[in-house]
């Protein structure tokens, strides 16, 4: 269509339209057929009501009473009809934004503006015994979907047991107290408006009687409704107030006690105090009734059978009355929604903006914000992932609201928090909603608007803070431990988004994949402390100790800008990985435990640290506590297994292993321990099973490294070397050069320990072996470099540096100095058997046979620790075998030939199939021959 052509059409159209009917036909007949058809088709429409004739309808126009199942109403997908009443129809529907089932009640006419204002107040009502109003349309209400029967239906079966009636009465009164406090009067309280659900009573339709407009609230209209429950003044058209509800309450309570039919003619109740309560509710004069629901609650709560109390007008009595009132009030406050035993599952936010930046980011932001609470417990990402796996969903599956609820139910958690973000022009609206998973009741709801994208994180923080209060956390706790995201974690939405992606990778075990993301997050926000923290964790997983320390230090420099829980994490990591100051790290972990008693993670970290420094008993205690707080994750069990093995408590380790296997709990790090245990106990079937478990898995390098270490145990260096090589190659393929380097080093160390220095010299490390192999200068250089990294490191200064220096002293033939140097290692030596071994060697050199044998005996006595103390260095097994040789030599020096011979024989038994060319073995044979 060209403008010219259009012009011709328009000209003809106007000519025809303005022409008389005779002219019309002629005009059209003259035109070419196509033009004619065009114009005719336009003319046909001129008298029809067209879209442009409608004014643009803004909200309010769309009358939507004709709704059927399957219809879509804004975000609501209508599913099925639940019922019909005088007021309208009720449907079950799904709020597609939250994936939440709701009930929608349609009424036959549109709401008044006044009612809508009131509806806003009603929707703010949030109470376990009030049916929550979610949304109000022009002629419909969206409400919490409840399943159960109405009190009216229940009462048809007769009266309720007194205890139950009182319990329900208290719940209704509590609901009234909450609403009245907010200035909302029910106005139409009746058994038909009370639902009996699992959690007790739900009061429906709060304040909705006003939708008809209470200026026009005619008696006739209401009388058609439910006159039986209506207060006398209400029937006379006087304005309703809280005491009107008290009257209706009295009617209902009486029916609950007496049965529906009896209520109009109440017979004396069994209980005098209850009778009195009801009577006072039903006083015709509002001034003579209970004046508030709180008063009513106190009366209901008063011990039955009630003794008449004579109130004395004294300060004491007044105080007592006040306390009683306060106690009743506190008890029935809407407050404690959750307890500090409950766990919450967070859904992914429903992102209704077109901006993908909010995907995933807001959930992470919410976690960060809520984790600051010592009261709430958010289900760990790892646990959620495990449940997803059991639900046969891919890891990283979006946690939609239904999935979150499923996870919540499966894991016995208390509630889910659902979130949504929508845009409103430049503005954004964030909605949070806590929902119990057993009955879908709304516990709390927060909706906050952000003026633009930059303020979204702030709004999220505020919403989360509001949520904490509504879920039952004390104000004092919130004030003490609450820092807005923007001040704490990061003010940058973009950085948070990238960080979230990185954190997810990390929590799925892909620590390498997490690194570039976390690094990018620190580029976007160079002050993003937690991103550095997790980079440190990733480096730790990748075995890069230097980088781990570097990132821990970077995080620590920014610690002023983090939340309290993050501060403890970062600070303890700084002392642990950054400076190596173990005592300070322990202090901070303990502080973390005290401040966040529900966090398993501080217990777990502290346990790791204790085990690292050989404090196995304490490590076990913390590991048990971590598992108590978080029984569904494997980390605390790793701690327990390590502690049991290091303590030589094998039967307990075995029992735990069986339990874990039964629960199918355990990744590579758990199976690593299973394999260690199998080696320790010489359980061939278990060894085969565990090796098979690792076969072909990305983490197979762990199994290969342990197999190599085990062969060292038997002196089979050639086969061991092959396996170390394979372990290193496998680790390299997984881009873990530091782990590969560890295996290389372990192999060289095993050679050096058994008397072959070539590999150590070629490799130029490890330092203490270099020192023993005449590479003193190089060893000291390595030591100096590491000292620069950890000038105050506890383990470095007390254990590892002394080991190198002791080795150097041995090489310089100063064994006394070696023994002296190693004294500082004693408190930690059970985790650092190398120090014991070196001390044994020094005593041998000093010809102190008894002392030497005692040192080597320690290693033999702690067989478990030889295997399990540090997973990253699976070469300890060799120290164990060689310690028999050391004992043999020590006993020989001490003149105990019998003991020496036994130790030699034990050693040869272990090394029965050892490579014959090993220098240490040949020497040992020669020494043994001399002994004969």
């Amino acid at each position: 269509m060209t403008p010219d052509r259009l012009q011709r059409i328009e000209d003809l159209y106007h000519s025809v339209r303005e022409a008389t009917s005779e002219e019309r036909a002629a005009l059209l007949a003259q035109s070419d057929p196509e033009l004619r058809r065009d114009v005719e088709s336009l003319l046909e429409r001129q008298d029809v009501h067209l879209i442009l004739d409608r004014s643009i309808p803004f909200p309010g126009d769309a009358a939507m009473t004709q709704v059927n199942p399957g219809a879509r109403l804004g975000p609501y997908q209508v599913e099925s009809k639940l019922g019909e009443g005088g007021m309208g129809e009720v449907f079950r529907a799904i709020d597609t934004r939250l994936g939440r089932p709701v009930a929608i009640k349609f009424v036959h006419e549109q709401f008044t503006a006044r009612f809508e204002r009131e509806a806003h107040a009603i929707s703010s009502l949030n109470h376990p015994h009030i049916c929550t109003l979610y949304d109000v349309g022009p002629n419909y209400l969206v409400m919490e979907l409840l399943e159960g029967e109405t009190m009216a239906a229940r009462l048809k079966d007769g009266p309720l047991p007194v205890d139950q009636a009182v319990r329900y009465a208290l719940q209704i009164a509590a609901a009234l107290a909450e609403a009245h406090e907010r200035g909302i009067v029910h106005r139409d309280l009746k058994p038909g408006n009370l639902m009996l659900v699992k959690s007790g009573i739900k009061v429906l339709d709060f304040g909705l009687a006003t939708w008809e407009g209470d200026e026009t609230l005619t008696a006739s209209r209401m009388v058609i409704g439910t006159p039986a429950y209506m207060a006398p003044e209400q029937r006379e058209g006087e304005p309703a107030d809280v005491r009107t509800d008290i009257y209706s309450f009295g009617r209902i309570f009486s029916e609950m006690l007496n049965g529906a039919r009896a209520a109009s003619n109440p017979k004396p109740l069994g209980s005098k105090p209850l009778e009195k309560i009801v009577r006072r509710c039903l006083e015709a004069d509002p001034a003579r009734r209970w004046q508030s629901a709180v008063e009513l609650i106190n009366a209901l709560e008063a011990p039955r059978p009630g003794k008449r109390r004579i109130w004395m007008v004294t300060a004491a009595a007044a105080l007592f009355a006040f306390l009683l009132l306060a106690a009743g009030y506190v008890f029935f406050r809407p407050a404690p929604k959750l307890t500090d035993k409950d766990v919450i599952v967070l859904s992914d936010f429903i992102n209704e903006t077109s901006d993908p930046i909010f995907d995933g980011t807001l959930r992470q932001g919410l976690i960060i914000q809520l984790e600051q609470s010592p009261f709430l417990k958010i289900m760990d990402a790892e646990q959620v992932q495990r449940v997803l796996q059991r639900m046969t969903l891919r890891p990283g599956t979006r946690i939609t609201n239904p999935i979150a609820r499923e996870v919540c139910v499966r894991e016995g958690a208390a509630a889910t928090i659902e979130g949504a973000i929508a845009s409103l022009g430049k503005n954004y609206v964030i909605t949070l909603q806590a929902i119990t998973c057993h009955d879908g009741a709304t516990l709390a709801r927060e909706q906050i608007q952000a003026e633009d994208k930059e303020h979204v994180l702030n709004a999220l923080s505020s919403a989360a803070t509001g949520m904490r209060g509504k879920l039952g956390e004390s104000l004092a706790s919130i004030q003490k431990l609450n820092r807005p995201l923007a001040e704490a974690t990061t003010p940058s939405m973009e950085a948070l988004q990238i960080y979230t992606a990185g954190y997810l990778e990390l929590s799925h075990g892909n620590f390498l994949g997490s690194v570039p993301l976390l690094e990018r997050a620190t580029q976007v926000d160079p002050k993003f402390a937690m991103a550095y923290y997790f980079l440190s964790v990733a480096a730790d997983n990748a075995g890069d100790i230097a980088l781990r320390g570097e990132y821990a230090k970077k995080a620590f420099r920014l610690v002023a800008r983090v939340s309290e829980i993050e501060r403890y994490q970062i600070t303890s990591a700084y002392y642990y990985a950054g400076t190596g100051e173990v005592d300070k790290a322990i202090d901070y972990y303990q502080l973390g435990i005290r401040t966040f008693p529900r966090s398993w993670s501080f217990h777990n970290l502290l346990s790791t640290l204790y085990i690292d420094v050989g404090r196995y008993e304490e490590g076990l205690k913390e590991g048990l506590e971590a598992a108590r707080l978080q029984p569904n994750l494997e980390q605390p069990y790793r701690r327990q297994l390590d502690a049991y093995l290091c303590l030589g408590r094998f039967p307990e380790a075995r029992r735990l292993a069986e339990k874990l296997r039964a629960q199918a709990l355990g990744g590579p790090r758990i199976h690593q321990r299973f394999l260690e245990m199998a080696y320790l106990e010489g359980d061939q079937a278990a060894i085969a099973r565990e090796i098979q478990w690792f076969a072909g898995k990305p983490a197979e390098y762990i199994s290969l490294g342990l197999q190599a270490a085990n062969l060292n145990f038997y002196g089979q260096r050639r086969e061991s070397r092959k396996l170390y090589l394979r372990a290193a190659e496998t680790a390299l393929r997984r881009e873990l050069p530091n782990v590969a380097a560890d295996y290389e080093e372990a192999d060289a160390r095993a050679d050096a320990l058994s008397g072959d220095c070539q590999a150590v010299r070629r490799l130029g490390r490890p330092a203490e072996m270099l020192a023993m192999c005449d590479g003193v200068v190089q060893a000291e250089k390595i030591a100096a470099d590491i000292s620069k990294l950890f000038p105050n490191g506890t383990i470095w200064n007390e254990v590892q540096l002394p080991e190198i220096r002791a080795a150097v002293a041995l090489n310089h033939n100063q064994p006394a100095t070696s023994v002296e140097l190693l004294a500082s290692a004693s408190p930690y030596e059970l985790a650092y058997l190398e120090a014991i071994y070196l001390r044994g060697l020094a005593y041998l050199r000093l010809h102190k046979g008894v002392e030497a044998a005692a040192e080597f005996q320690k290693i033999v006595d702690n067989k478990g620790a030889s295997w399990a103390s540090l997973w990253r260095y699976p070469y300890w097994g060799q120290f164990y075998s060689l310690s028999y040789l050391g004992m043999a030599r020590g006993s020989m020096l001490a003149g105990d030939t019998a003991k020496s011979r036994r130790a030699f024989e034990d050693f040869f038994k272990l090394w029965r199939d050892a490579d014959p060319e090993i220098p240490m073995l040949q020497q040992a044979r020669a020494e043994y021959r001399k002994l004969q």
Partner: protein
Amino acid sequence: MQADITNLLKAWSAGDGAALDQLSKHVYDELRLMARRHMKNERKGNTLQTTALVNEVYLRLVDVTKVEWQQRSQFFAMAAQMMRRILVDAARARASHKRGAGAVHVNFDETAVLSPDLDRSMVALDEALDAFAHIAPRQAKVVELRYFGGLKEEEIVEVLKISLRTVRRDWEFARVWLARELDG
């Protein structure tokens, strides 16, 4: 505020392009704000019409005693364009949302209350109007001013500098043309 807007309006009228930019921003924000407020509170019975809305914004933003009649028309012409954008964007977002497209701007308040039919026709109308503007720019402009901006015929005369008869003929033709396009 009011004085600023009034001055901006005058400056624009005198040919200052930068003033238009600033003015547009204010007017757009205000229109959105008002639209939202109305959506929240005025659902009962009487439809809020775009005309009333634009007029309300105008009265709020501009000191009417200090501007000329022509300037008022210019203001309304600008507001009409914006109103079209606001309404169509909202409708498009809702319509997309209904098709299950997740990541679309959806306005919470609007979502709940406009009927699906209307959303679709609003988006379709916008598209048809765009196409129409290629072959009949003046006629399309008349539609925008009158339908989205709520301008009176006399005001359109002023803004577009055309005769009243042309305004009427343009409107009449556009309404049937667009209706046919939408039916097609």
